[in-house]
């Protein structure tokens, strides 16, 4: 089971890191999310793998380590707040810079997307009118 858990965390880390190295904001955010899953799992299994009963007093003879669980619980919630923040940052960047490149200064994509937007808006207007 240990090898399985290690492999699962490894796969999630790899996929997360690969996506974080992409040039557009949305894949990067997907990557951050994947990586945070991996990190949460990693911290969680630092309390070792136990599958007897939850860390509730009286539920069994031995208990899993409650400390990593408590740490990961808040980490999940904070991770959500961070993902939301980065996501909105990406929206804002897209609005201010006209493209969704992570550096915001990708000239090729600016041109392309300006055209696309123009195109899309025109199409939208055409239909609604």
């Amino acid at each position: 089971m240990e090898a399985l858990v290690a492999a699962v965390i490894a796969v999630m880390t790899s996929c997360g890191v690969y996506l974080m190295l992409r040039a557009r904001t949305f894949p990067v955010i997907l990557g951050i999310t994947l990586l945070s899953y991996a990190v949460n799992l990693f911290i969680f299994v630092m309390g070792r793998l136990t599958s007897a009963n939850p860390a509730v007093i009286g539920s069994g003879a031995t208990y899993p380590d409650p400390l990593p669980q408590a740490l990961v619980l808040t980490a999940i919630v904070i991770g959500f707040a961070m993902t939301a923040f980065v996501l909105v940052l990406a929206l804002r960047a897209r609005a201010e810079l006209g493209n969704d490149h992570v550096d915001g200064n990708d000239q090729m994509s600016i041109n392309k997307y300006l055209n696309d937007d123009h195109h899309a808006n025109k199409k939208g207007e055409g239909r609604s009118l």
Partner: protein
Amino acid sequence: MTLLLVILLPLMGVALPLLTERLGRNRCAIAAALAPLAVLGLLIHHLPAVLNGNILYFHLSWLPALGLDFSLRLDGLGMMFGLLISGIGLLVILYARYYLSDDDSLGKLYAVLQLFMMAMLGIVTADNILLLIVFWELTSLSSFLLIGFWSYRSDARKGARMALSITGAGGLCLLGGALLLGHIVGSFNMGDILAAGDVIREHTLYPVALLLVLLGAFTKSAQFPFHFWLPHAMAAPTPVSAYLHSATMVKAGVFLLARLYPALAETEMWFLIVTSVGLVTLVFAAYTAMMKHDLKGLLAYSTISHLGLVTLLLGLGTKMAATAAVFHVINHAIFKASLFMAAGIIDHETGTRDMRKINGLWKYMPHTALLAMVAAASMAGVPLLNGFLSKEMFFNETLHLRSYGFLNWLVPIMATVAGIFAVAYSWRFIHDVFFNGEPIDLPKYPPHEPPRYMKVPVEILVVLCLLVGMMPNLTVAPLINAASAVVVGGELKEYEISLWHGFNLPLLMSFAALAGGLLLYSQRKGLFAFYDRGFQLDEKMLFEARVQRGVRGSRWLTDTLENGALQRYVMLLVVAALVAGTAGLWPLASLTGPLPLTPVDGVSVLAAVILAVGALGTVLVHHNRLAALLLLSVVGLIVALVFVRFSAPDLALTQLSVEVVTIVLMMLALYFLPQLTPNESPPWRVSRDIALASGAGIGVGLITWAVLTRPYNTIADYFLANSVSGGGGTNVVNVILVDFRGFDTLGEITVLAIAAVGIFAMLQNLNLPLPGADGSGRQWARDPYPPILAVLARILLPLALLVSAYIFLRGHNLPGGGFIAGLITSVALILQYVSSGVVWMQQRMGWNYRSMATLGVVIAALTGLGSFVWGYPFLTSSFTHVHWPVVGDFELATAMIFDLGVYITVVGATLLILAQLGMLTQPGRMQTRPVEEEA
């Protein structure tokens, strides 16, 4: 307590001139003078006690764990410096009132001046060596502001920067030295350190500590080769120069030597370093002073030279030399302050400080001339003036060197040479400025006497020169006794300062200096020519070149590392993590630890496969963003199952509800973003990234494997043992969150609330075009909200709220709690938003989620504060069991109120984020719908 006022008054005085500046210059000056006047009065009030050898103490514990206490002491040495600092400070305030033009802010100058005064008073009264360093650094910082007061001038900025770099670097050395002293003695208390002189001197770290302390003192007191910042600090307004370079800033270094004298002095190392540095500074600066054509430049180098004299005296290590040093500190402060002020008057009235232009001013300003001449004569060491007395003692002490070989005769000879130069430059100050023909090309002509009160400070100081010079025993002798008794550690042999010791060698040296100086001055033309031909180091150019090189270097490094490409930063981050991780794993003999492995079951393998497929699928289809998002949600759900599998129900519940919220949020955001990611990465980048990502994944996998197969020690036993007795709950995870580590949780919900408010701010005035179609050009559906979903969601809402209430209430004892309940409530409400729209929800639930998030944090914080009321530390919880009918035995804990705060914060923050983002879609929908209806 009155001792604390010595520091507090100037600190409070900082505000006064700023507040009164609008009321006119006179009132501003009076307001600025209040604090120094009060300090002076306080010091004089304590003077009799201190003169009798008493030491006043004040103690306030500050950071006892670091050995840093706010403790003050007022002994003879501190008293002497304190009187100089506050007294001359007072005169400078009066002088600056007339010196500063209307264009400059008088209030600002006074404010910084008092800040500086506070720091200086702190240095001389600190009874804790770390506290002394705090004040020491404050003088560096406030002097930076003072020297750069005319911040629009390039030379002022450069001079200030140079002073700050040199004295700041010295301050760091001093900190090192102080820490070493504290380490050797075992205490940072000044009294302990001074009493442990023998221990310090015999310690193996003594040479290091001594060198570091001396570096601090020498940089501050502008000793060779760190002297060069002082002449460039002359770019300051003259009142500042008069204050910094007579009584205060540069004297801090000398004070430090005197203060630590009992702890560090009287070793061969001390003698050799301090004496030779003092000697070189004394002679070199006296020679340079003679060659400066700038009035303030002359005074600057003469200041350096006199500081060298005091340093040399302290280095000699005899008790009389220390007395002479203390005496000369007073004398130099008095005559140098008056000379700087006189130079300022001349500058003020003629518009220049170039002595080649300023000549024959005696005719135009005889009163000022007389004052300056007396002060300059004192600087030269003319009999009947105070400068003569301490210089006489100095000459006498140089003759009493024993057992240091050639230094025995070199020191007195060099002292006489420096004396000759001192007479020459003093005489030049008198002759070149007030006589020597007519003025040449003065910017302001004709010069005339300054305003009456501008001369008052100079007059007071010159009268002091005369009084001390003629009646030393009636004026300063008791103070010198008290101060030097502190320096040498109490046992001062009987001596008397007298005007006349008979015809002896020191007197001969004095007269040789006088005659030689006059002779030297008469040959000045040749000397200047020789100086101009000779090698001259422009320290400012050198220093600036170094600074520029440093700036260029760091800019190059920054530009190289930081080129604005996020992909590159992430790449560097991953590479760095790989390197650090490899370096950490390398020493491991075996990756696999001794623990036996747990068995694998089929369901787990299946889940792992699904998870891996989901993750890899997310990557493979990431160009189609919606598909990638859906696959990502699969991963999230399996992660929740992993938590279930390894007995963490709390985590599973949290992960599940967060997953829902996250995916909804991302879908919402995706609406505004391009639906497709262009295929733009070149193949080399793709392969590089695959390599990096695989490396990172394999590394993390190996670490996980290595950890999981090894046993470990946990602190969890404490939580498990005390959860019921200490926290009143059986669900240890929840008890840790709301009780044991409640402070962390408070921090975390604060972060959550801040993130939500940040998102709210970022979404203000956000102008995103509403896309009409998805990535492949298909129109977005314009159907109204699905009615079946809406009805079902409405029926579900009360049920969901009931569940979340149940989860919340049982959280202390069974899996659940504020975080999870908050998320469930959020999901239930978000479902309403999804099924019925923002407008529909707003009509029914116009809550202000911002206030809600804040309220949650406030409730949690108040719960924590509540324990103060009962005298317990922050966030101590208390609990009791009550028996409710029907429900049964029920536990009430204050932790529950805290958890309620968590709950409210989570609901407020989550809904704030989602509702705000959802609102963005609204204007478009509201616009398009009527249009459709019309069509």
